[in-house]
C-alpha cells in the first residue's frame, strides 16, 4: 500500500488540500507530519496544489514501503514498492 509523509507547514498546505479532496487517499497525523496512504498509487496534480517550484520538489518527507515513480512539473506519483 503506497504511503508517504508530508510535513505540516504552510507551504505544503496546497499538497495536503489536494490529497484531502481525493476520496481514494487516507490522511492521518504522525506528530507534525501528515501520513497519506492509499490502496492505489498516490497521484498529486502539481497545478492543483499551486505550489511553487521549490516547495513542490521538497514536499515529500518520507516513504514507507513506497517509491516515487513520477515527480515533475505535472504530478507526484507514489507507488507501492
Amino acid at each position: 500500500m503506497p504511503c508517504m509523509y508530508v510535513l505540516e507547514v504552510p507551504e505544503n498546505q496546497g499538497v495536503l488540500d489536494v490529497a484531502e479532496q481525493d476520496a481514494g487517499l487516507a490522511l492521518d497525523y504522525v506528530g507534525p507530519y501528515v501520513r497519506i496512504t492509499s490502496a492505489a498509487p498516490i497521484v498529486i496534480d502539481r497545478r492543483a496544489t499551486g505550489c511553487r517550484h521549490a516547495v513542490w520538489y521538497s514536499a515529500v518527507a518520507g516513504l514507507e514501503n513506497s517509491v516515487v515513480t513520477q515527480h515533475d512539473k505535472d504530478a507526484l506519483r507514489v507507488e507501492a514498492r
Partner: protein
Amino acid sequence: MSRNSPGQAKPVHRVRGVDHAAFPTFDPNATVRFYRDVLKFPIVHSICAAGWGPERHPDFIHFFFDIGNGDRLAFFYYFGWSPQGDQTAPGDAWARLPHGTPEFFKNSRHIALNVGDEEDLLEYRRRLDESQWPVEMQVMHETIESIYTHDPNGYMLEITRQLRPVAPQEDLDAQLTIAALCDVTAGEAPSMDKLLTRKAELIVERAAAWEAEQPGWREAQRELI
C-alpha cells in the same frame, strides 16, 4: 575564577554567529568598489602584515567589511601572488575546478547575507543592478527569497530574506533528515529514495513523541495555517 554565579551554567551552544569569513582577492580595487561603494558595507578593520611564519609567506593586507550584526566579511590581498590554476576554468579567486564542472556545484559554496524584509532585499537589488555586478537571479525558495550575484572575485553572494519565522516542526524535520542522511551515506549507494525510506522510519519512531513534548503546538499550528 569563574565569572558565572553558581546555578548559572553556560549553555552548551555558545557561539554567537560569524566573527569573519575570509577569502583571497587578487583585485582589491574591484572588491572595495563592490562591497564598500555598491553595497555600502563599511570597512571596519584592516591589517598590514609583513610576511611571517615558518613557510614562505608573502606580505599581505587583510581587510574587513561589516556585514551587519557585528559580523564581518574579510579578504586577503597577498603582494606578488598570482591566481592559481587555469583561469579559463570554472571557479573563483581561491580555486579553479576542472573544465565542465557544472554551475550548481561551483555555486554550492557561497555566502548568504540576511536582510529584514522585502524592501531591504529590493534595495540591495537596486544597488547591484545599477552596478557592473547586476543581480543574476531572484528566487523564491521554500521559506526564503533570495537575490544572487558574483562578486569581482567570482564568489557567489546571496542576499536573502525569510518569508516567515522557522516553525518548530522544521527543526525536528531537519534533525530527522540529517539523521537519515548520515545513515544512508554510511551505507552503499546513497540515494534520495533510501533517505526518504529511512526518514519515514525515523518519523514513525520519533514524531509523535516530539509532538507530545510541545504543549500547545497543535493549536498554534491551526492558527498558522
